[in-house]
């Protein structure tokens, strides 16, 4: 079981049962989203991932650009047969997001990591 810290601003940790936990830090640079996406997918495929949990606990706000990034990552994960779920969304973030999102997101939402 290895925990890796990438300079691109996230932790991706295998948590067993084909599940991975992605914890973004404030340093996560989504402006180079395509490179970031490839890097994450490569690691997920290498780890034979089935599910990716994206932890939003440290994000008090989700801007449209960040929401776009989440949707893009979810669609890409779906393409490699990995289900993505966002977890621990903050009330402030949920409120802001619900005010501008027009359709259902491409990812599912759960309160936390489910017991495997």
């Amino acid at each position, binding site marked *: 079981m290895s925990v890796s810290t990438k300079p691109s601003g996230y932790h991706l940790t295998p948590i067993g049962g084909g599940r991975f936990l992605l914890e973004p830090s404030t340093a996560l640079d989504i402006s180079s989203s395509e490179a970031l996406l490839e890097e994450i997918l490569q690691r997920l495929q290498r780890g034979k991932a089935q599910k990716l949990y994206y932890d939003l606990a440290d994000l008090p706000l989700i801007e449209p650009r960040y929401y776009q990034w989440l949707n893009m990552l979810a669609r890409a994960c779906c393409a490699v047969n990995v289900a993505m779920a966002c977890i621990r*969304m903050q*009330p402030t973030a949920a409120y802001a997001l619900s005010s501008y999102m027009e359709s259902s997101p491409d990812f599912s*939402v759960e309160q936390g990591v489910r017991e495997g």
Partner: protein
Amino acid sequence: MASKQNAQTILIEQLKLQVGNISAAIEQQGHTAFGTSRLLSNDEITDFSIEFLELMVALLDSKDPLNHREPAFEALRIFFSNVSKHLLIRGGKMDDLVRYIQFLQRSFLDTLQDDKKVGLDDTRAILLLLSNIFNELSLEVFQTYLKEKEQTILAQQEELRETSTPITEIWDGVLTLPIIGILDSSRTMVVMESLLNRIASDRAKAVVMDVTGVRSIDSQVSHHLIQMMRAIQLMGADAILTGIRPEIARALTSLNIDLGNVTTRATLSDGLKEAFRRMNIHVSAASDI
């Protein structure tokens, strides 16, 4: 300028000469206005009269009594503001206080009546000076009254908001929220804030939102509803909407509101059953076990 100075001097002299009479008259009127209705005690009325006369002398003694930024004027203004608040809290009427202020002004003028030395110009200057001061004091009382009323209304609105949208944990992890009345933007914000915080703190798995009490719905309200349902789902909880009456359903259809992603049930009871089903909770009568 000279007549203004003169007016101040005459008034101060009169005040010093007739302080006993003025004080007695003010106290007497104070008892009539506030004592009989027990808004102020005898001691309070006496204290009021003494403090008012002291502040009035200080103001007339100041450089420019008509300057509202003068510390002496400010002290008098604050004094009246506090008296107004005090009376309003005890159920006093603004009219009584304004009438009392008019009486205070009159009591000053009465002292000049017997003084033959005061000429026409001085009388006019004194009248102007007193009207200016007392008009400002009446205005202060009026503003205090408005502020107090505004605060009362805001507090009542806040209380109404809290009581009209009670969020109840009806079962472990199941929250219910009956919405009654009109759902406007500000109310949606308040409800959503408390609801989302409750979902986070209680780790609620399902929220049953009942709109039986919503009488009418327009485009804005329906969007608020959808926004609330989305926010609940984003928090990782199931959102169940119940109690949509036929006229509301018809309005939603004509407003092109898509409830496809929202779980709806006819009644609150059905909504709770659905929430329990999703959480794998079976409720049965004790005799069935």
